[in-house]
């Protein structure tokens, strides 16, 4: 029986003597019967069990009558069109491939609509064991796929679990689309659980680090806000958005008055904001005239087109590119990669650099007295910044960093601005300038070659050590990946950047950067999400996984196994929260005491965690722990065979600390 959506359940009249709740109990009983039938043991076993338990009591006369006589009139509560079906239509119109969720009662209506009405396809439901995993998976997925994954979570406890991962995505400028279940109308909350899982303003907890949110009060409102949210999330600077799906709207039928009227609004994504033409002309003039320009790349390349444009600009100017490693901005074996000096530059072009102040200034390190800052740039050096972050800022969380003084600030998306900047530069380059650029380029090519030789020599130190050096692990991996179509889906800051120093990164999907807000617990789920995005392209995804990070929500290993997500995880098992260990060591040295005690509270040993066994428990192929470097190559080979047949695999490697 359809019930008007704006009618309180306490005031609505139901002619049934059973009522909806009674129906649900009946349905549950029916389901139980079905389950019992399905699970019925073979007859012989059943007889044995019967004998063990004794005779089954016969039903009483009242029970027998209840089960055999026709019941009194009952209104069975069914609907051909719950509101969540319409919500599913809206969701499907936005083109999500996947929806990640740890199941929760406040969005059970939408859950059911997506898997049945929606056919569990576009989006397909991913079973997650923690909401932090859901969001971080979406984070990694978006950095490969370039679009958001849908997430469903409770508006209360689910969002609380998810919040750190949302902050990471926010700081990393990544679109994540979160739908929260909530029971807004208190008269629909049936139990203490539903009261505890309801909230007045669900999105408020994460409003400081999301771009937009809404709590629609009707299905038409939901549709408009859902499309608006997608558009906002996908407009640079891209950020997470939150939409509350009221449980009553989900579960109650579409009101008669709305049937035939509800429609899904058309989505038109905004073109990314490009820089003002006058500012671009000014930037081009400065760059072409510069003798020692340096390009600093932050989150410059959102897509493969961004990487291509940056290569074109760098080659046009023969300007070195210093990569802050937030994205795959520039090929690592390019002659212009990593060269140049901020201190010698006369013009610095910064592209989406969130920590620009840190890139151009230094501070007294933690172990030295005082707190002084020093500008690294030479006097008179000009600084240009193209930064979409200037178009969107919030105040509470301080991920925006220290204020950077620049000479030309262009509030725009760098990737969208680069083509116009390239054209503006081309118009200004004379034959003389071109010759100067060529000479400059040759100098940087030589410097880059020397850096590479130095890296290889450095890698040779401790190459046969146990625990295994991070350079050795990287070299062993590259030896088997070099002929494959691969994607490194993890940050490598804590691996002394060895893959970036040794491997040949040249495609946008070769690297996805890091956490965003350095919230630990990101890595394992983000790599699973990125690997999922890589799956349909047949790429081999590789995750160099810090041990501390995996322990936040290791259940994502099961999600990878369950959904057959091909991903090679190689543990960076240094048995510590090593960054913190070093910091405590700093403090002990400063206090001049107990320098041998810094491992207290920072090490992850005694007992040592067996990650191979952990992966096995979650249903994944595993090997290790491996401490002899000679055993590593064969283990990688075996694990890659598993990954190539479409499954995840994990190798536990005892590694040097960094």
């Amino acid at each position, binding site marked *: 029986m359809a019930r008007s959506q704006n009618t309180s359940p306490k005031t609505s009249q139901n002619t049934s003597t059973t009522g909806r709740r009674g129906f649900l109990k009946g349905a549950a009983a029916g389901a139980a019967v079905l389950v019992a039938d399905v699970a019925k043991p073979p007859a012989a076993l059943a007889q044995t069990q019967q004998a063990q338990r004794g005779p089954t009591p016969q039903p009483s006369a009242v029970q027998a009558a209840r089960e055999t006589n026709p019941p009194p009139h009952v209104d069975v509560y069914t609907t051909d069109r719950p509101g969540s079906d319409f919500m599913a239509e809206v969701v499907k119109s936005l083109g999500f491939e996947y929806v990640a969720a740890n199941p929760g009662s406040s969005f059970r209506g939408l859950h059911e609509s997506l898997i049945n009405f929606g056919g569990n396809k576009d989006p397909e439901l991913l079973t997650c064991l923690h909401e932090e995993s859901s969001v971080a998976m979406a984070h990694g997925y978006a950095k490969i796929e370039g679009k958001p994954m849908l997430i469903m979570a409770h508006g209360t406890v689910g969002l609380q679990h998810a919040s750190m991962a949302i902050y990471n995505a926010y700081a990393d400028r990544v679109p994540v689309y979160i739908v929260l279940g909530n029971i807004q109308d208190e008269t629909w909350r049936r139990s203490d659980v539903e009261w505890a899982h309801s909230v007045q303003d669900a999105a408020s907890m994460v409003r400081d680090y999301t771009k937009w949110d809404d709590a629609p009060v009707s299905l038409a409102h939901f549709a408009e806000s859902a499309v608006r949210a997608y558009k906002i999330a996908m407009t640079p600077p891209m950020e997470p958005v939150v939409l509350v799906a009221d449980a009553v709207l989900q579960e109650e039928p579409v009101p008669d008055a709305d049937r035939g009227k509800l429609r899904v609004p058309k989505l038109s994504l905004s073109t990314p904001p490009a820089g003002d033409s006058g500012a671009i002309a000014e930037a081009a003039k400065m760059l072409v005239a510069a003798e020692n320009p340096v390009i600093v790349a932050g989150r410059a390349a959102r897509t493969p087109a961004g990487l291509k444009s940056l290569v074109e600009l760098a080659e046009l100017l023969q300007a070195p590119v210093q990569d802050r490693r937030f994205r795959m901005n520039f090929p690592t074996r390019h002659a212009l990669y990593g060269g140049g000096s901020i201190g010698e530059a006369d013009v610095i072009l910064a592209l989406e650099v969130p920590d620009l102040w840190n890139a151009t200034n230094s501070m007294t390190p933690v*172990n030295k007295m005082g707190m002084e800052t020093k500008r690294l740039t030479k006097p008179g050096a000009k600084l240009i910044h193209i930064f979409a972050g200037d178009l969107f800022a919030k105040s509470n969380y301080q991920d925006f960093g220290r204020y950077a003084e620049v000479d030309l600030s262009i509030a725009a998306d760098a990737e969208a601005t680069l083509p116009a900047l390239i054209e503006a530069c081309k118009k200004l380059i004379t034959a003389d300038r071109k010759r100067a650029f060529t000479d400059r380029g040759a100098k940087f090519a030589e410097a880059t070659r020397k850096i590479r030789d130095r890296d290889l020599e450095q890698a040779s130190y401790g190459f046969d050590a146990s625990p295994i050096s991070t350079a050795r692990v990287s070299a062993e991996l590259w*030896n088997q990946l070099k002929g494959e179509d691969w994607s490194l889906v993890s940050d490598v800051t804590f691996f002394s950047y060895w893959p970036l120093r040794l491997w040949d990164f040249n495609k946008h999907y070769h690297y996805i950067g890091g956490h965003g807000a350095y919230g630990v617990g990101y890595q394992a789920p983000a790599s699973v999400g990125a690997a999922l995005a890589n799956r349909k392209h047949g790429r081999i995804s590789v995750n160099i996984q810090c041990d501390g990070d995996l322990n936040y929500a290791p259940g994502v290993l099961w999600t990878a196994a369950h959904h057959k997500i091909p991903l090679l995880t190689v543990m960076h098992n240094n048995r510590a929260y090593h960054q913190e260990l*070093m910091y405590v060591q700093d403090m002990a040295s400063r206090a001049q005491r*107990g320098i041998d005690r*810094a491992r207290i509270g920072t090490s992850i040993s005694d007992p040592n965690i067996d990650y191979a066994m952990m992966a096995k428990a979650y249903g994944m192929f595993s090997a290790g722990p491996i401490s002899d470097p000679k055993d590593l190559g064969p283990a990688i080979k075996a694990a890659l065979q598993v990954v190539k047949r479409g499954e995840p695999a994990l190798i536990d490697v005892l590694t040097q600390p*960094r």
Partner: protein
Amino acid sequence: MRTVAFLMIAAAFVLTSVALPQTPAPASGDAAKGKSLFLKDGCYECHGTVGQGTKDGARIGPPVLNVQGLIRYVRRPAGAMPAFTEKVITDAELTDIYAYLKSISPPKAVKDIPLLEQLK
């Protein structure tokens, strides 16, 4: 963190490249004891267990400084490395650590390590 890393790299450069005044080395230390101290007192955290160096600490195994240069640097490091005073580690202990670092064999040349040679 990135700033710290940068400065530590700068420290690494200083430690490995700057020629400090050379003074006669004290009596040689005990390499086995030195290894134990190197691990127990946390030197390995930034420098690696065989002193190979990491992004957070200089390569010091085998060392390029003499023992006096090492002790002087540990007492008053120039970069981001914390200072280790005599209250927490003695000259004798640092001499043992030096002996351990000195006992570490230099690596094979890159051309003799196929996994690295192929990366050239």
